[in-house]
């Protein structure tokens, strides 16, 4: 088992992580082009150096409500496959965390007694595992599953 780097981010008071190798870059929110008639969790389209990214409001998808904690959201650009350019909008990008791979337990076996996320069935779609770091519950998201979630309900 090895120590891996994870890119962390906050949505409201919940801390999530994504494998750093699956992340291209992080940036502030630019000028979004909204897509009329699209789902509520699709924030819009963003042109970054010629590539058109679909911006996905992961907070809306995971928690079922639009987070109002931060006015200026930030973006995490995910490594794209083929023609899929996906970015997720988050409240605040956190640190790059070093976590042992096997610290993450699959869903259904949480370590933390204050696991709020267990109550929300929608999370199971893209959650890979949970871990407790410094007494804070950290939820590992799978970018592939996020992408599937975006395209499956489109």
């Amino acid at each position, binding site marked *: 088992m090895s120590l891996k*780097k994870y*890119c962390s981010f906050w949505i409201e008071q919940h801390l999530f992580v994504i494998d*750093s*190798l699956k*992340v*291209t*870059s*992080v*940036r*502030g929110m630019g000028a979004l082009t909204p897509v009329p008639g699209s789902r509520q969790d699709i924030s819009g389209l963003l042109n970054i150096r010629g590539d058109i990214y679909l911006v996905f409001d992961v907070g809306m998808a995971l928690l079922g409500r639009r987070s109002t904690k931060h006015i200026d959201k*930030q973006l995490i650009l995910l490594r794209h496959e083929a023609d899929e350019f996906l970015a997720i909008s988050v409240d605040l*990008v956190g*640190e*790059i965390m070093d976590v042992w791979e096997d610290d993450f337990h699959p869903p*259904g*076996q*949480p370590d933390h*007694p*204050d*696991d*709020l996320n*267990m*109550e*929300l*069935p929608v999370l199971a779609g893209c959650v890979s595992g949970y871990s407790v770091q410094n007494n804070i519950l950290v939820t590992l998201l799978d970018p592939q599953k996020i992408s599937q979630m975006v395209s499956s309900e489109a």
Partner: protein
Amino acid sequence: MKKLRLKHQIALLVFVLVLGLSTIAAIGGFGLARTYQQVEHFTNVINLANTRAMVLRGNLLNAIRMEKNTILAQNDADAKKYSEKAQYFSSEFERSLTDLNPILTKVGDPLLIKELSDVNDSWLVLKNNQDNIIKLMGENTNVKAIRLINGDLRSRIDDIEKNLQEMTASDPSSSSPKRKSGIGLDVSKEYQVISLKQKLSYLLERTVLTLLRHNSEYDVGTMNSYSKQISEYMVELDGNVEQLKSLISLDQVNSIRLESDIKSIKALVDQVIAYSFKNSNSEAAHLTTTITPEYGTKADNGIVKIIDTLHKEVENSSSTIKDVYYSAITSILISAIVAFIVGVFVAQRISSSVNKGVTDVLNLSSNLAHSAIAVNKISIELSDQSEKTSIKSAEVSSMTDHISSNVNTMAAAAEQMSMNVASISSASEEISVNVGQISTAAGQTSKNVELVVQNIATTVKALESVADDARDGAKISRDAADLAQSATTSMSALDLSAKEVNKVTEIIKMIAMQTNLLALNAMIESTSAGEAGKGFAVVANEIKQLANQSARAAEEIAKMIEGIQNDTRVAVDVIGTVNETISRINASSTRIFEAVGLEVTNAATSTESLRSASSSVSEIARAIHEIAIGTTDMARNSSEVAKAATDVSKSSSGTAVATQGISSNIRVVTDAAQLTNQSADELTQASATLQQISIELNESLSELA
């Protein structure tokens, strides 16, 4: 207002001011009472409801969490602990729900009551579900099955395998002359025994695995198929054991032991299957992943709606309190302005009334002066007449000496003259008395005017003192206004500087945030680079720390700037208020100074006029006194003339010329006396006028007093 005395007018002004202040106080009190009511409603009802709703939500989520932890507990002690906590939070939730109901009723929004009722309905389902889960977890059959599998069953299987190993090793057929195997059997038999033992182990292992699958399964159909599979394994196991027994010769003890072991395994398998079929843990897990999320989310959403509605109520209450507060302030200001206007109006009326009184006094003084001049003329005329009368009387006297001895006819005329002169004398005496009275009245008037002059002088001194104070006050006000203005200018400059610093601070924060993102991107790229990126990762980390420090410093500066700006705004407001107050004081002082100046000038003029009137009246008194003396002399002379005429009457001689002269002289005296009488009448009238003027002056002065 004209008919009221000055002290009544001042009393009216005071009454108006007190009434105005009372009105302001009443309106202010009413406004404050309304504000208090709103604040109380907000504090005691809405805020309390909000707090209780959030406590309710917390209890709900904790109860659900503890329920899940009960299921996921690794051992019985933890399961019991979490189930007790779940029950505790459930009872707390119910208590919070009961407490919240009356408070939401007080808020008065029927939607809130409905939402709470929906939450209650969802909770009833959740509570029932929780009780079932706790009961099922108490049974804990799946865990017991696993314990049996991993405990007794495994050890029994190990025992069988060990026993079989021992049994096959001590087989008596080992003395056979046939080719010996390691276990004393021929090869084919040995092979069969090994194969059977392996099959036995395999069957037992498959049984264990199938039992585990059976235990973790929720669907009854699948469980039945697993049970069927396990039964087949048991039948096969029996077959294998029989074959094994036939291949190896077991003594009775071993045989019984083997049978006993197989029997106990079967019994354990049956027990495990029975536990698995009860499936209490799976059932509890199923309940917690189906019913709990559905109704838990419903209840949570209901509570969130209640909290959102209460937040809106908070905003509404806040704006209502503001409105009430502003309306109270507006009412107070309007009342103050109205009271001020009414007070100024009343004061203006009183001031004009006082001015009118002073004007009346001046007019009266002027009239008094004119009357005094008239009296003076009259007295001059009287004096001329008296002189003429004296001259004529002297002539009469010399004439009568000449005719004293010889006129008979003069006797009757002289007698008549005596009678006329006697009446002149009495009339002159009467004149003398009346003039004496006029003199006394004029003297009294003069004294009264002197008193008025003295009072006016005192008033002038007081007014001059007030004017000095007002002038000093105006000067001080101007100085204070200048200071306040310069302070306001300094505060404005400070505020501008603070705003500039704030802008720079925002830029620093933006730069810190961008630097942070840059450092994160550098870390991500260094991760992609793998080992080669480790050095870069260190540099990126340092940059990130620097960015964080910058952001923190900028935050602290922004907080300080905000504090300074708030203090500056407060100071500017206070200085503005002071400035306004000083301006108003300055204006009032100027007006007072001008008004007092005017009054002093008027008072000085009045004093001068009154003094001259006083001196004129004194002169009048003196002249009248002299007239009185002259008139007395005239009376006395007339008496002597009467006596002389009587002597002439007694002697009865004289000449016609002398008699005519006497007659004519007496006629002249008579004319003179008539003129004197007329003059005396006019003097009496003038004195009466003067007396009337004095009375009116007294009245005006007493009004002023």
